[in-house]
């Protein structure tokens, strides 16, 4: 049995975060040590408390209960207590005990800090992908975006809508690229707690670009005078779908290429 040790420190990256580092075996006898550590941490008045457990060898249910008390105290102050760095074995045991319903688990302190910045400071995160202009790669890109949205806590419905937007825009970018252009399609996804911004850039075929500009022109015709879409009409539906699913949608044209930008607000 390794002696349990707890140390309290303030994060040097985000001063509002206090890190409570646990080391060793935490059995029932170590409860007073845990409650002392929690008390000391709460004296720092943190907005966010990270229990760093990468050096923990075992943890008893009584200690977990003590941590739940610490979390409750943090929630009452408008903050949160999260757990970081647990080894797979202990994490599995805690999950079996249902602790994952109470605590958020993070792989390491950095991820926990990022989560704080995301949740409390509204920080956006960027993922950029450059991929070959080949249609068979679009489903992979779509799935990746959906996984990312789910990973960041977006609902299944929101994630599905986001992936549909990505699918339509990327398909267009590949299908309407300049013939023979070897340039990759550039996708960038900026995600924060409230919205996702999607930008797709490609080098467009001049003829297709002209058609796209035509589609994007504001239509002054009264809705009742517009020709009804026919069942076999294949073109222009993708963009209508993207417009319907996104909160904001615009297209920029330049000599370099076309840049499609869609914003989708989080609904759920």
């Amino acid at each position, binding site marked *: 049995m390794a002696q349990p040790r707890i140390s309290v420190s303030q994060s040097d990256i*985000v001063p509002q975060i206090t890190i409570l580092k646990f080391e060793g075996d935490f059995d029932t006898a170590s409860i007073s040590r845990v409650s002392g550590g929690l008390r000391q941490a709460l004296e720092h008045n943190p907005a966010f408390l990270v229990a760093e457990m990468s050096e923990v060898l075992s943890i008893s249910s009584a200690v977990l209960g003590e941590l739940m008390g610490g979390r409750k105290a943090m929630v009452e102050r408008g903050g949160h207590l999260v757990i970081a760095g647990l080894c797979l074995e202990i994490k599995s045991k805690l999950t079996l005990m249902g602790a994952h319903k109470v605590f958020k688990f993070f792989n*390491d302190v*950095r991820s926990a800090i*990022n989560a704080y910045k995301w949740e409390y400071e509204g920080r956006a995160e960027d993922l950029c*992908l450059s991929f070959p202009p080949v249609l068979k*790669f679009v489903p992979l890109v779509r799935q*990746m975006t959906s*996984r990312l949205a789910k990973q960041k806590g977006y609902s299944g419905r929101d994630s599905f809508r986001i992936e549909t937007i990505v699918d339509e825009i990327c398909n267009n970018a590949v299908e309407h690229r300049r013939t023979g252009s070897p340039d*990759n399609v550039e996708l960038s996804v900026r995600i924060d707690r409230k919205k996702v911004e999607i930008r797709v850039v490609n080098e467009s075929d001049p003829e297709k670009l002209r058609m796209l500009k035509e589609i994007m022109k504001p239509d002054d015709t009264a809705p009742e005078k517009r020709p009804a879409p026919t069942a076999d009409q294949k073109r222009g539906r993708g963009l209508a779908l993207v417009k319907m699913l996104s909160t904001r949608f615009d297209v920029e044209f330049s000599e370099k290429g076309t840049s499609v930008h869609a914003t989708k607000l989080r609904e759920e």
Partner: protein
Amino acid sequence: MNGPFTFTLKFPGDLEYIPVVRKFVSDALQANEFSPKFAYRSEIIIDEICNNAVSYGCTSVDAAITLTFRVFGDHIEFSIQDEGGNPEHIEKLKSAVRSEERPAPEAHAMHTSGKSSMGLEIVRMLCDDLTVHVGQNNLTSISVVKMREETEPEEAGEVPA
């Protein structure tokens, strides 16, 4: 387009992103008719090199990792770049890659905590070539080449005699 295909993925230096990245690489390889076994082994390589890049190559919270992978008919190339880690980790990384013989796992320890990391050992075992380049400001880049494996009878649908 018949390839080779180049993908570049830039993502935040956060371990939470790695499952999304590894799955994307696996899907891309299978879309290029590499076997599920090959894709799974490549996933492990990606997992290890990305974990190292995030854990040891990102000193600021806003650091990002750039993964480039090129898919050829007979092989793939991965290259990962971080924004520069601390010199102690980089020295350990360089010595781990340089060593020709396979020393005891302790010699490959990359964790300062004393835990041994078999990450690079596993990558070396699964790939055909592994090189590390440390540039200015400790910017680290690791390149990995993995050749397409010969099709196994089960994969080709052949019945063994």
